[in-house]
């Protein structure tokens, strides 16, 4: 099974983490919500998969392109 990193598309901070490690995600499911430019930006698992590892914590600052979650396809 190939692992895929979901990366932050914005510079901002982690607001809420919606998924848990080991959880099975359907395509389009929200993994976490970032806050950037005063907007709640969802991080979506576009292709679906299983959460292998969550790499950030709520409140943590993230930069554009930073890996947030590892998902097994």
């Amino acid at each position, binding site marked *: 099974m190939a692992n895929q990193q979901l990366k932050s*598309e914005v*510079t901002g901070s982690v607001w809420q983490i919606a998924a848990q490690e080991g959880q099975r995600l359907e395509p389009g499911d929200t993994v976490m919500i970032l806050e950037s*430019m*005063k*907007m*709640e*930006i*969802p991080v979506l698992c576009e292709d679906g998969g299983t959460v292998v590892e969550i790499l950030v914590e709520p409140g943590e600052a993230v930069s554009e392109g930073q890996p947030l979650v590892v998902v097994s396809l």
Partner: protein
Amino acid sequence: MSTKEVEDPSQSRRAKMREDYEQRREKALAMGGTAKLQKRKAQGLLNARERIDRLFDPGTFIESGLFSTSAVPADQDKSPGDGKVAGFGKIHSREAAVVANDFTVMGASSAATNGRKMSHMKRVATQRGMPLIFLGESSGARMPDHMGSRGMGQLLGNDGSQYQRMREIPWASATLGLSYGSSSWYAAMSDFSVMRKGAVLAVSSSLLASLAVKEEVDPQELGGWQLHAEITGFADLVVDSDEQAIEAIRQFLSYLPSHHQEAPPVAPVPSGSGEGMDRILDLLPASRTQVYDVRKVIRTLVDRDSFFELKARFGKVGVTGLARLGGKTVGIIANNPLYKGGALDTDACEKITSFIVLCDSFNIPLVMLVDTPGFVIGTEAEKKRAPGKIMNFMNALALTTMPKLSVVLRKSYGQAYLNMGGGRNSDEMAAWPTAEISFMDPQFAVKVVHGFNPGDPGFDDARAAMDRANEVWDIAAIYAAQSVVLPEHTRDYLIRMLEVHELRLTGGVGQHLMRAWPTSF
């Protein structure tokens, strides 16, 4: 009288000619031979002739160059069609031209005869005003024909307009296998480029790339669908099969005129269009900080099932696609808050710019749906040359001579207000009562204007005053926005305004001021 038939010399001559013709024809139609064709079939791939059969309305294909072969005498017997099958046919009853690469014949490599064929198809399609379609799968330039200075001099550079694009006619391409060299050039120059998963679009093969950089290069990493759908944006659409790719080309062309001097075709309005308009406001979250997928708004607004999204996985903060409103083709440009809150980044600027050029070149009015907090700012954006990209986008919008209708759904801030058709940057600017328009988001503006941070005394009052000032009513009062439209009336408003702004003086044909702009940025 003898019953014995007298031999008719004329009949025998006809029969002989026919037999010779049929033999030659069969040899040409056999392409690269049974073994190669069967191998493709086993892989689930269509061959060049099957692809053409699917592309055109049944029985309308007429071939050009059936008996062509390689110009190199030693290769003549093994090069039916010289590796490229060309001709004319009808798509939804309208004439079109095609060049389909036949990978079973010398890897569909480019050579002298098929180069002549390509030039002929381009010339006829351009002069007679019909779309040109490339079904690409090619190993690149034929070796050893191109080698040495004589090879180069004979085969390359003899047609100065070979890679000239003036957008007189729509070009559509499908990348359906390994595509190197000219096959990739034509895909990059096309108005629409669809890619089948598994295909590769690159300058040259992974073998050559590996030799050049002295490391193994994976073909999919070099030019696979993910690269072109998400990073380069060269793929307007990615599909799973040859059949889907060809159907996508038929669908794309259904929105376009045959050439730049006519208006796009008008289609019947499907029943069920406009369903859901009474609840369209529900698609917008009540909280201004929450996001939504603007594509749901688009699908509700336009004629049923008519939204044909382009570059869906590239520059996702901007949505571009063709659609119909009241049967007429429109180009939709929308911010998508689902990604980055709708803040416009450089990829989205490039994507929208090339889409504006496409629409303007082929007489397609623009409809802009606005919900953006502004452009992405910061060091990353500057490194990606944001000012240049933003101004290319702005200039494209200004040069468009097709009608531009802009509807502000929610946020419209700063320079992005102008880029998304604010003020005289569209022919009609409308806004929903949910719109908020200003130079910057009030959360930041309270700090900049008053020096207050959230929690400071006076912050809440200053913020409330700003929120009120950002409402749509003030801009409507000074007639800088022409209309305030209830969400549920938006489809009817757009259909009516498209009628109002029809280009009556020119029969729907614009000035095409960007016809020589690049096909990618």
